[in-house]
C-alpha cells in the first residue's frame, strides 16, 4: 500500500523522550515504520512542530450530547470560535455542520481533526442507551472512538457487592462491557444515581445507598477489584461524590487515598479521577467558596497510583451533561436554567443543564483558575490529561485557547486582570509563574492517554504505532509561546497536516478526507460457569424490571464500524 515520508519534522514525542528534535517520520500501510522506499510520497514539514495525533480521553461526544442538542437548539447557530463552530454549508468533502457546544456528529469529527486530534473517548455510556451511543459513533467521521460504560449506581453491581460475590460481579462487568461495547468502567457519583431515584443523594464515601446497604466506598473498591481481576486496559474512571459542592476537595482526596491499596494488574494507574476542577472546591458554601486545588495538587504530587484530568472551564456558554442527576437538579435550580433529567432504569440517573461561565462571576472565575492551578501545581505532567470535560467546562474547540493559558503566564494575567478582587482572594493562580512547554503539552494531550488507556499504538510516534500525526504551523526554536501565544492558538486551531492511519485528513486547517474511524471495545473472558450463574440473576432483572428484553439490549456487531476487539483474560 501507500508509503509516506515526512521530512524535516520537529518532533515532540514524550513516549520516546524526544523533545522537539528535527527528524524524518516514515509511514507504511497506515503504521509508522523505520524506513520507506524511494517511492514514498514526501511531505516536507519544514521544521514545524510534529506530534502524535491528539487523544481526548474524556469527552461527551456521543449519546448524552444528543439531549444537549434537544434542550439547546439555539446552540446550532452559535459561532464563538470561527472556523470551528457555527453553521457551515456542506462542501464536496464535508457534510453540513452546525453548533458550538453540541455540534452535529460530522462536525465533531471534522473539528477534532482540525485540532490535530485523532482519537476520542466518550466519557459515559449508560448500558441501556449504548446502542444510541454507537449509532452516533458511526456518524462521527475520521476519529477512532471508545467509550466508558457506567457501573456506579447499577442494581446488579450493588447487589453483588452487598452479597460479597466478586466473581459474579466480574462476570457482570465483563458482560456489561460486551453488552455496551465499552472500553472501561466509569463510576459517576457512586450510589448517588440510585439515591437520586428517591430524590436524594449520597453525601460522602460512607453514606449508605438507599435500599442497597452498600456505601460509595464499597462500590468503588468492589469495581476496582473487578477491574483489576479482569485485567482491563483502563483503570476505573471515577467522577467523585459531591461534585460541584464547596468543600468537596476533602471527598476527592479521600477517594484518591482509598485507591492506594488497589494493585493495578497492568502497567498503568490504579485510578483515574476525572474533571477534578469540579471536585477541588474549598469553603463551606458559595459565599466562602475558594480554591481547593493546592490541597489536591499536594496530595497528587505525593501519590503515584493515579492520574486525573482537568475539566478546565472556558468562559462563555457551556452545556453540563452528566450521569450525576442530583448535581444537575441543583444546577438548574440555582441558575434558573433549563433542566433535563433522565432515569436510566436499574442503572443510573442523568441530567443536562446549559449554563454560562462569566469572568464577572467570582465563582466562575475561581473555577477557571482551579483547572489551571491543578495543571500547574501538579509537577508531573504524566499524571495529567488535558480536558475541558467537553462540553461541561466548555467546548473542545477551545482547546487551543486553553493551551495558551497553560503556556503563557502573560496570557493568564490578561484574563485575570478582568477578575474582581473577591475572586482573586479565593485563588492562588496569580502567584504561579510556571509555563508549560510543547513537550509537557504533548504529554497532557497524547502520551498520558496512551499510557492510561493501555493503547501503546496511540499517542506516540514509535515504529509500529498508528500513523496518526499532527503537524502544526509552529517552528519550536523560533517561537516564545509565553509572548507569542496568539500564534500558538492559531497554529493549534487548524493543523497544517493531520494524518489518520497514514492518510492526510487535514491540510492547512481544511478537511481533505473523511475516512471512517475504528471502535475499540473490550471483551474480558470469564469462566463459563460463573457467567451462566450471573446470567440467571440478570435474567430475573430483565423479567421483573427492565422495559426492554435482553435480546434488544445488547449492542450487536451491526452497530460497530471497523470494530477492534481488545481481549483480556480474567483471573479467577
Amino acid at each position: 500500500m501507500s508509503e509516506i515520508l515526512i521530512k524535516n519534522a520537529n518532533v515532540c514525542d514524550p513516549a520516546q523522550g524526544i523533545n522537539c528534535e528535527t527528524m524524518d517520520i516514515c509511514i507504511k500501510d497506515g503504521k509508522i515504520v523505520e524506513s520507506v522506499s524511494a517511492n514514498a510520497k514526501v511531505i516536507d514539514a519544514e521544521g514545524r512542530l510534529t506530534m502524535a495525533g491528539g487523544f481526548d480521553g474524556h469527552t461527551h461526544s456521543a449519546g448524552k450530547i444528543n439531549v444537549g442538542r434537544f434542550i439547546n437548539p439555539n446552540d446550532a447557530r452559535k459561532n464563538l470560535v470561527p472556523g470551528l463552530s457555527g453553521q457551515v454549508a456542506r462542501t464536496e468533502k464535508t457534510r453540513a455542520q452546525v453548533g458550538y457546544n453540541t455540534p452535529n456528529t460530522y462536525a465533531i469529527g471534522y473539528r477534532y481533526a482540525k485540532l490535530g486530534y485523532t482519537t476520542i473517548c466518550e466519557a459515559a455510556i449508560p448500558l441501556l442507551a449504548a446502542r444510541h451511543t454507537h449509532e452516533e459513533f458511526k456518524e462521527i467521521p475520521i476519529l477512532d472512538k471508545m467509550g466508558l460504560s457506567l457501573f456506579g449506581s447499577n442494581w446488579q453491581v450493588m447487589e453483588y457487592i452487598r452479597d460479597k460475590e466478586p466473581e459474579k460481579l466480574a462476570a457482570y462487568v465483563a458482560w456489561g462491557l460486551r453488552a455496551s461495547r465499552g472500553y472501561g468502567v466509569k463510576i459517576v457519583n457512586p450510589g448517588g444515581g440510585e439515591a437520586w431515584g428517591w430524590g436524594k443523594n449520597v453525601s460522602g464515601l460512607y453514606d449508605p445507598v438507599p435500599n442497597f446497604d452498600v456505601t460509595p466506598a464499597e462500590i468503588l473498591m468492589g469495581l476496582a477489584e473487578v477491574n483489576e481481576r479482569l485485567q482491563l486496559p483502563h483503570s476505573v474512571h471515577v467522577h467523585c461524590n459531591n461534585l460541584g459542592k464547596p468543600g468537596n476537595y476533602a471527598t476527592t482526596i479521600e477517594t484518591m487515598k482509598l485507591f492506594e491499596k488497589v494493585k493495578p494488574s497492568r502497567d498503568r494507574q490504579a485510578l483515574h479521577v476525572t474533571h477534578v476542577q469540579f471536585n477541588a472546591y474549598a469553603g463551606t458554601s458559595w459565599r466562602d467558596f475558594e480554591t481547593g486545588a493546592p490541597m489536591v495538587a499536594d496530595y497528587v504530587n505525593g501519590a503515584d497510583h493515579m492520574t486525573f484530568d482537568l475539566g478546565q472551564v472556558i468562559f462563555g456558554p457551556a452545556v453540563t451533561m452528566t450521569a450525576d442527576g442530583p448535581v444537575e437538579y441543583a444546577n438548574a435550580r440555582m441558575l434558573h436554567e433549563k433542566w433535563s433529567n433522565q432515569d436510566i432504569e436499574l442503572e443510573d440517573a442523568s441530567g443536562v443543564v446549559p449554563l454560562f461561565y462569566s469572568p464577572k462571576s467570582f465563582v466562575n472565575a475561581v473555577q477557571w483558575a482551579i483547572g489551571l492551578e491543578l495543571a500547574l501545581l501538579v509537577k508531573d505532567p504524566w499524571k495529567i490529561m488535558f480536558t475541558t470535560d467537553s462540553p461541561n467546562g466548555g467546548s473542545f474547540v477551545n482547546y487551543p485557547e486553553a493551551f495558551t493559558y497553560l503556556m503563557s503566564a502573560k496570557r493568564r494575567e490578561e484574563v485575570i486582570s478582568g477578575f474582581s478582587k473577591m475572586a482573586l482572594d479565593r485563588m492562588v493562580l496569580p502567584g504561579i509563574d510556571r509555563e508549560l512547554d510543547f513537550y509537557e503539552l504533548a504529554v497532557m494531550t497524547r502520551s498520558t492517554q496512551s499510557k492510561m488507556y493501555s493503547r501503546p499504538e496511540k499517542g506516540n510516534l514509535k515504529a509500529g504505532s498508528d500513523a496518526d500525526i499532527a503537524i502544526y504551523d509552529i517552528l519550536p526554536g523560533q517561537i516564545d509561546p509565553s509572548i507569542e501565544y496568539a500564534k500558538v492558538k492559531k497554529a493549534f486551531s487548524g493543523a497544517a497536516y493531520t494524518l489518520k492511519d497514514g492518510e492526510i485528513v487535514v491540510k492547512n486547517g481544511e478537511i481533505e478526507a473523511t475516512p471512517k474511524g475504528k471502535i475499540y471495545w473490550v471483551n474480558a473472558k470469564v469462566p463459563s460457569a460463573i457467567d451462566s450463574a450471573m446470567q440467571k440473576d440478570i435474567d430475573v432483572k430483565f423479567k421483573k424490571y427492565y422495559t426492554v428484553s435482553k435480546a434488544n439490549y445488547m449492542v450487536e456487531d451491526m452497530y460497530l464500524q471497523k470494530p477492534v476487539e481488545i481481549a483480556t483474560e480474567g483471573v479467577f
Partner: protein
Amino acid sequence: MQVVRLSLKEANKIPIEADDINPDNFAGKTEEEIKAIQVWYGNSQYPLGEFFNVKIEGSDSVENTKIVFEGDVSRVKRIGQNMSAGEIEINGNVDMHCGFNMRGGKIVINGDADSWLGCEMAGGEIILNGNASYYVGSGYRGESCGMRGGKITINGNARDYLGEHMCGGEILVKGNVGLLPAISNNGGKIVIEGNATMPASEMKNGTVIIKGETSDLLPSYKEEGTEEVEGVTYRKFVGDVNVGGKGVLLIK
C-alpha cells in the same frame, strides 16, 4: 430615494431563503448587482435574478431605500432579515421569519404573514395588514430572549404563542389571538384588542393588556385591584407566581 421593485417570475413551491433581501444590501446597487445577489433555494444557492424580475428607480442610501414586492411571496422566507433602516412593502402574503432580527426601518405587509414574524426583532416597525400565524415576535428556538425592541402592529388576528420569550418592544393586535400569548415573556408590552386564551403563562416581567375576552385565565396570578389605562379600567393581575414573576396582566 431608491425604489427596488421585485416580482416573482413564477410562483415557487420550494421556499426561497431571502435573508439577503433587505435595504442594507440593496442600497446604491444597480439592477445587475441586485440580480446577482445569491439566495438559497432548497439546498443550493442561485442568483436572485433567476427568480425575480427586478426594476430600480434611483439610487440612494439605506435609509432612503424602499423594496416593493409586487404580488404574493408566500414561499419566500426571511425577507428583511437583519435590516437596520429603509422600508420594505409586501403586496401579498409572506412566508416565515419576515423581519427576523430586524433592528430598524419599516416593513409593511399587505397580506398575511406566516410564523415567526419579527422574531428576535430589536428595533424598527412591522405593520401587518392581514393575519399572522404562530410565534409573532418570539425568540429563536431555545433562546431565553425573543423580541427586544421596536413595534409590531397586526391589524388582523394572530395565532398561538404571540410574543413568546419577548424581552422588550411592543406588539399590538387589533383582532384575536390564539393560545398562550406572552408565554415566558420577560419584558415589553403586548396589547390585544380582541380575545385571548391562557395569556402570560410563566411571564417574568412585562405588561399584557387584553381588551376583549380572556378565556382560561391561569390560576398562578394574584389579583391586585384595578388599573386604569387610557380611560379604561382593567382588573390587574400580577405573576406568574410559578416563576416568581412580576409581570402585569390587565384584563376586563
